[in-house]
């Protein structure tokens, strides 16, 4: 048949925020293929100007409800760098543990609630409640644990209130940390069951490859989530690093007419950020148990299949649990105790980067001598992925057409591709401005 295909997914479902997929094929020729982002812009830049440094993370946390822990961490790191605040080794470790909590929590949400329905052939998780009760209850139980794990350190997980410049405003007790460690150890059956659930539908993960550049935080000592330098790996395996302060030179944001979110690129036409980018950059530093899982899934770097991002998230779920157990042991063995806040020693400008569930996140602020914010900039993982999503869709549609897929199958394949990126669209239209006023 001579193909006429029209896909118009207005407000893609089971993603955070609003995105559209528009495909127009006439007589087998692609007339239009667009990933559109109509999310309402929010102008966070106008909000942080003139605010005190102690308030800035509280404001920019509100960029995103799913990764507000990551925004808070990136924000306080940038502020601490700007103001010369030196955090303690204990703070560093506790923040790494809460970063693990967020990635675990968000990955569980994404794998079970947003991706799994496609693999089980359901429109959402709700029809699965009667048919797959055990899986849904397990998902909610794990989600709740992720929430309690993050809340123990952050006060809560949506806009955490305890993480502030200089350290923590309040601390859990030693007994509570020990209890958390035990709960993470006790999670093993749920982890095993999750792996089994994913294995049972693994053959439903579409095969599609498009080599691209992958960007992630990287470190010589750990699988970087809370701290590191910028690194990319090219399709030929070449790696290059940049200091976080130079983030603009490798993100190069630009405006496109179909999107209220900015796009980004580095050495190629686009790059990918997120779990798969971290896996491709930092595989060697994963916890042995996480590597064992990857090996069992025959999943190894470099992997060029963006649908495998959800599988990389599963590997990271295991890593975050195991690495947190290790860190909790270290914190407890070193004589855990509440610490006073580290204080500012200067004013000026500073950057901070963390790996949020969807990829590398940059915050950048300037402060005057009174600690008041003079300007800010944030670059969000989903912004960085928009360009890569567009190029993936452009490569995927001809393949689906060649395979004689019908309109419905094409629509589902494209939706699943965008969902695999776990886009966080509210985030990407946050609009923090690039300019600094002194």
């Amino acid at each position, binding site marked *: 048949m001579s193909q006429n295909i029209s896909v118009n997914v207005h*407000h893609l*479902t*089971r*993603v*955070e*925020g*609003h995105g559209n997929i528009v495909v127009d094929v006439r007589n087998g020729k692609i007339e239009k293929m667009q990933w559109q982002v*109509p999310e*309402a*812009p*929010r*102008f966070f*830049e*106008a*909000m942080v100007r*003139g*605010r*005190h440094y102690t*308030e800035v993370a*509280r*404001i920019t946390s*509100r960029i*995103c*409800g*799913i990764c*507000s822990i990551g925004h808070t961490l990136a924000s306080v790191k940038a502020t601490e760098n700007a103001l010369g605040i030196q955090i303690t080794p204990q703070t560093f470790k506790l923040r790494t543990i809460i970063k693990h909590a967020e990635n675990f929590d968000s990955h569980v*949400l994404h794998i079970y*609630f*947003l991706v799994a*329905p496609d693999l089980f052939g359901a*429109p*959402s*998780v*709700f029809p699965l*409640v009667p048919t797959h009760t055990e899986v*849904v*209850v397990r998902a*909610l*139980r794990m*989600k*709740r644990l992720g*929430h309690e794990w993050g809340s123990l350190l952050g*006060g*809560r*997980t*949506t*806009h955490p*209130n*305890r993480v*502030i410049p200089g350290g923590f*405003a*309040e601390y859990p007790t030693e007994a509570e940390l020990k209890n958390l460690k035990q709960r993470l150890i006790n999670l093993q059956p749920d982890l095993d069951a999750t792996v089994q659930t994913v294995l049972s539908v693994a053959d439903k993960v579409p095969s599609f490859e498009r080599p691209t550049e992958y960007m992630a935080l990287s470190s010589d000592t750990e699988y970087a989530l809370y701290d590191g330098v910028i690194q990319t790996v090219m399709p030929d395996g070449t790696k290059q690093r940049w200091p976080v302060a130079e983030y603009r030179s490798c993100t190069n944001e630009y*405006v496109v007419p*179909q*999107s*209220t979110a900015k796009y980004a690129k580095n050495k190629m036409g686009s790059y990918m950020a997120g779990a798969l980018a971290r896996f491709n950059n930092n595989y060697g530093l994963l916890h042995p148990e996480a590597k064992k899982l990857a090996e069992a899934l025959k999943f190894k770097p470099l992997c060029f299949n963006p649908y495998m991002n959800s599988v990389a998230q599963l590997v990271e779920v295991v890593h975050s649990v195991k690495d947190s157990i290790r860190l909790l042991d270290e914190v407890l063995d070193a004589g855990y105790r509440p610490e006073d806040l580290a204080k500012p020693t200067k004013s000026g400008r500073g950057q901070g980067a963390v790996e949020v569930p969807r990829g590398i996140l940059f915050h950048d602020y300037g402060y005057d001598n009174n600690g008041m914010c003079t300007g800010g900039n944030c670059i969000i993982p989903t912004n960085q992925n928009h360009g890569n999503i567009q190029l993936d869709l452009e490569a995927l549609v001809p393949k689906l057409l060649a395979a004689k897929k019908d309109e419905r199958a094409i629509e589902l394949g494209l939706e699943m591709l965008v969902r695999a990126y776990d886009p966080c669209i*509210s*985030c990407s239209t946050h609009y923090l*401005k690039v*300019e600094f006023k002194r």
Partner: protein
Amino acid sequence: MSAKRKVKVAFFDFTCCEGCQVELTNLSDPIFVGLLDHIEFVEFREVMKERTTEPIDIAFIEGSFTRESDRARLEDIRKRASIVIAYGACAATAGINAMKNHTTDYKEFVYGKDASMPHLETQKALPVSAAIKVDYALHGCPMDRAEFVRVVSHLLHGKQPVIPNYPVCVECKMRETVCRYDLNDHCLGLVARAGCGAPCPADGIPCEACRGFWDHPNEEAIEEILVSKGGLPAERAKEKSRMFTATMRRDAQ
């Protein structure tokens, strides 16, 4: 409502971070699965592909009204829903989105030469009630999960939900949290609407009034107290409450 028919519930989102929707997934398995015995989600874009054009019993609307082009969608929801609830600070008071409302240069400052591109349309951030009639508001950034369950439960039983209308200070006293002002800090709890259980002062940070003002805030007094007891410079004291109550301040535009 008959005992057998489940109440049809839908969630919609406008300008926001969707964190209040995420909070639902933190309800824990017994509460969430228990809710499903009584309610049926008929539309919830963040987690469901299913959509409906049918009447809805309770519509929860998250996010602020920031684009004239969103008005028609809001009116359609109002037309289909028996009860509309502003869900979270962005919907209830415009929340943090309204921090930009007193400035005029935000669009040019952010977009520069591209500011006039049609798809970048925006206006001052307003609560959902600026576009349509709202029956109840679940305040807070994020909204409080326990309050959500309580309000839904009241509605299921045909009761009128009661939203607290007294300052956060009351809840700090009830849980015996030491006042931030006695710890050389400052706080907006004196003018902030309670109902959250006052977690922030207990966690070592000031209340930022994320639930908005209660109905009788003494704005002159809080500015004075922020200076005299909180040690804030006068200019900062004046701007302090803009974070979550910009549309409720006496200088709101």
